[in-house]
């Protein structure tokens, strides 16, 4: 890991909340416009954040606080590692543990909303984790390394050889961003699924921490999407923004589905797409098993 990678990683830690908060503000504005409303200003998320910081502390159990800090710090670590161009597989494992922290936090209180939210969050992880891991495997088969730096050194864009993996990642993205039709464990904006599910027992500054983690998560996910067109990177950034806009449209036209639907769509379509894609590059290019 060179000094340059450290620098990029640390810069990402500082800038990601600003970019993420702004993008989520844009999300609220665009959602409002799609519904024929005017909508809040684009920096509304920052108002929400500082308001929550200024509220009095109200703690249900101390255990939940440990988990929520774990959720934030592990997500930050994942963001740092992705921007420092480290191992993709490790990044996904850290991200999985960050998600697990949220579940443990939800289970450490006795509120039924929180408990059901935790169960559903586990279902969500069960749905998107295979997609992300298999996507990393497909990328490995193309570039010969799990390192993000390997993707940059790989000459041609991944999207051209891994189009179906990309579609599968979009399915995982909807679950990870907590957008309809898969916002079953906790929903965004004022949609009140399960009185906000896993976040039910958090208030004040701890809710603000969750909000901050979401900004990091959003940047992390979009950065992963951008990797599909890493050379030149500006096309990747445009690709990520286009994908984000697509997610907003899907969010606004779709109703919420049950967890069974989520599981069958992500396992059948998501995992299926990736396996077909791996077979496709094997048959068309014959370069899969030449490791």
């Amino acid at each position, binding site marked *: 890991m060179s000094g340059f990678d450290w620098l990029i990683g640390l810069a990402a830690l500082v800038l990601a909340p600003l970019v993420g908060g702004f993008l989520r503000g844009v999300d609220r504005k665009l959602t409002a416009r799609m519904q024929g*409303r*005017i909508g809040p200003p684009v920096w509304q998320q920052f108002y929400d954040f500082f308001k929550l910081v200024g509220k009095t502390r109200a703690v249900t159990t101390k255990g939940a606080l440990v988990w929520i800090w774990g959720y934030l710090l592990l997500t930050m670590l994942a963001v740092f590692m992705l921007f420092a161009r480290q191992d993709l597989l490790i990044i996904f494992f850290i991200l999985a543990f960050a998600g697990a922290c949220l579940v443990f936090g939800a289970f450490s209180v006795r509120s039924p909303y929180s408990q059901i939210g935790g169960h559903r969050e586990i279902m969500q992880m069960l749905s998107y984790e295979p997609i992300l891991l298999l996507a990393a495997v497909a990328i490995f088969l193309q570039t010969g390394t799990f390192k993000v730096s390997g993707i940059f050194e790989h000459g041609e864009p991944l999207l051209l050889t891994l189009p179906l993996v990309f579609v599968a990642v979009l399915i995982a993205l909807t679950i990870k961003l907590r957008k309809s039709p898969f916002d079953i464990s906790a929903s965004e*904006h004022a949609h009140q699924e399960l009185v*906000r599910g896993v976040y039910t027992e958090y208030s004040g500054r701890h809710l603000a921490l969750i909000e901050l983690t979401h900004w990091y998560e959003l940047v992390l996910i979009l950065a992963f999407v951008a990797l599909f067109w890493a050379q030149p990177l500006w096309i990747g950034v445009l690709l990520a923004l286009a994908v984000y806009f697509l997610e907003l449209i899907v969010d606004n036209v779709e109703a919420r589905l049950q967890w069974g639907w989520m599981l069958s769509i992500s396992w059948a379509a998501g995992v299926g797409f990736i396996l077909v894609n791996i077979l496709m590059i094997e048959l068309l290019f014959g370069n899969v098993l030449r490791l």
Partner: protein
Amino acid sequence: MMGLITKSRIKSPWIVHYCCGSCNGCDIELLACLTPLYDVERFGILNIGNPKHADLLVVTGPVNKRNERVLLNLYHQMPEPRVVVAVGACACTGGIFYNCYNVLGGIDKVIPVDVYVPGCAARPEAIIDGIVMALDKLAKIK
């Protein structure tokens, strides 16, 4: 820093709505504020379902002996600073139910009320006015 937080409080009031058993007239008018016609989200106002996340408690209907406990519980679950808005004649004074055997009267018999919005049913414009007054009170809380 404190100035930033005060400004953010005014810009992002999250509402929890509790119906103490009103006729639903005021509830419908309150929800009408969220529709594209009035769109209170442009002021950052969200209708949140969870008292632990909320800043404003908006109550409709007269308080009675059954839901007094629930109302008090909701109020205590909200972290400070919090402001209470009573919407409609029933929530303000008990309205036409004032002498029912089970009705205690307006919600100020149970919890401190900051803003009273009269009307039967209160119009959405009046409710938005009331919430703006509540924001003034929120800004003065140190």
